[in-house]
């Protein structure tokens, strides 16, 4: 939303937006007041419209609805099409349809400009505690666009799957995508990078660290995420099994 509206029209945004590690618009968010998702805070700004995400506190949303505030709720998009729809919906909610369309066009152009690598490489996403991404999620779309086949859908049914390193190795994945910054604060997620089997697999397995902020939000960052994946998996010196 920060990209679509002028700063003086924005009464306040979530405090999480300022966290550079997890937000793509941290710089923009610095220019406007922040709130912590509390009904009182939100009401104090007397907004014309309130935008709530799927992760906003349910109780807060209920209170705001009862207070008669115009509330627009957004879901988590699972495909590029849904992402485009979300952008358009948000733009309509704040009366900036023009800018919304422009953003969608930019994203489409950005994606079109990227190569479509063939043949698809086999990839697995590794999150902390070995969880992988479920079938039919936005990450999978990004992976597919980047020429990566999500092995998780082959390993089993839908729903949450756990992928121990052994499966990564034995499924003969070409790419392992880690959710996190390789050199950020210590986390179990990136601790997997240290496992000697990664080195032992050597050129057989390419490891890519994909910062979550690039694919947990809807916006131009989706292009960046796709571009990063393509660059890291098909760039110079990549083994194509």
């Amino acid at each position, binding site marked *: 939303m920060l990209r679509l509206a002028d700063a003086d029209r924005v009464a306040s945004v979530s405090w999480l937006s300022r966290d550079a590690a997890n937000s793509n618009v941290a710089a923009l968010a610095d220019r406007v007041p922040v709130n912590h998702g509390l009904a009182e805070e939100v009401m104090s700004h007397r907004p014309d419209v309130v935008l709530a995400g799927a992760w906003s506190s349910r109780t807060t949303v209920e209170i705001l609805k009862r207070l008669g505030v115009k509330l627009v709720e957004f879901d988590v998009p699972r495909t590029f099409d849904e992402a485009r729809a979300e952008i358009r919906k948000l733009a309509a909610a704040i009366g900036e349809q023009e800018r919304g369309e422009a953003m969608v066009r930019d994203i489409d152009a950005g994606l079109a400009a990227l190569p479509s690598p063939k043949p698809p490489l086999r990839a697995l996403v590794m999150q902390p505690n070995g969880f992988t991404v479920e079938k039919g999620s936005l990450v999978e779309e990004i992976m597919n666009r980047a020429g990566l086949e999500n092995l998780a859908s082959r390993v089993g049914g839908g729903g949450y799957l756990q992928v*121990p390193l052994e499966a990564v190795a034995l499924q003969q994945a070409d790419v392992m995508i880690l959710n996190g910054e390789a050199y950020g604060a*210590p986390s179990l997620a990136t601790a997997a990078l240290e496992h*000697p089997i990664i080195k032992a697999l050597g050129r057989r397995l390419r490891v890519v660290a994909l910062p979550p902020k690039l694919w947990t939000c809807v916006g131009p960052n989706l292009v960046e995420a796709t571009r990063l994946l393509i660059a890291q998996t098909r760039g110079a010196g990549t083994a194509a099994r």
Partner: protein
Amino acid sequence: MTAASVSPVARAEATRHAWLVVGLSLIVACALVGSLFVGYAGLDVTQAIADALRGAQTLPAIVLVELRLPRALLGCFVGFSLGLAGAAMQGFLRNPLAEPGVVGVSGAAALGAVIAFYSGLSTLVPLALPFGAIAGAIFAALLLFALVGRGAGTMTVILAGVAINSFAAALTSLALNLSPNGFSALEIVYWLMGSLVDRSLPQVWLATPFMLAGWILLLTAAPALDALSLGEPTARSLGFDMARLRVRLVVGAALAVGASVAVSGAIGFVGLVAPHVLRPFVGHRPGRLLFVSGLGGAALLLLADIAARLLPIRPELKLGVITAMVGAPFLFHLVYRLRREA
């Protein structure tokens, strides 16, 4: 009664004990090998072993050596540490309910590990992780012995354990709250439940020396624990220094349990079940129970880890959950029995 007529009885007993040790060792060995054969996808283990011995870097060999072997070794060593520490604590506190998880030593070790990890210390200095866990364990053990005093009753032991566990859990939450990594609280929840998934050989080399040191300290306390069955004054009159014994047990248990927790998270109840099941087989002698209990713990943990992989439940059950499912009813049964005897 001549000397000659004394020996056969004693010799029979020594033989029985030897059979017990051999039998348990065999179970552990089988479980160890079994653990190598169980995994997430088909793997020709015999081929992998042959490849590994040849030095060939084939995929099966890599998976066997880098993933399955550390997991099996840690299952064995961690299980041994927990079984041994449990038996040692029970011998010292003269109470069959004491074990690292129940009395809070594991929880405090987990706290130490969490602090070492999320503060970034262990990334700079890998040794910081086991050190942190061991420090946490020492603190808890000292606190425990201070609260419980000499040969305390069941109530005191359990209450002290509850207090220490609560405190450790609170501090762990605090540490996670303050951690620079915003997702730490989420990802650590599973680690705290205890697991051996995706452990590596470097972790084995890191933890094993500490565990070994702990084992030696605990196993050599066997005669003192035997003497302690008659109470502290008598044990002292038999030439055993109680203060030194306490230090030996605190440090030994902290080393064994701390190093274990540093690599596997907090796994409880192994130190409760193994000694309890095996105690009748050693005539209730606390000294003899130590080594045997270690073997029992190793067998228990290896089997639990194999079960975790074989059970069709996904996500995979955490080791700590499996041991708790077996151990908690056990604890209830023990408490009930002790109440009846009281």
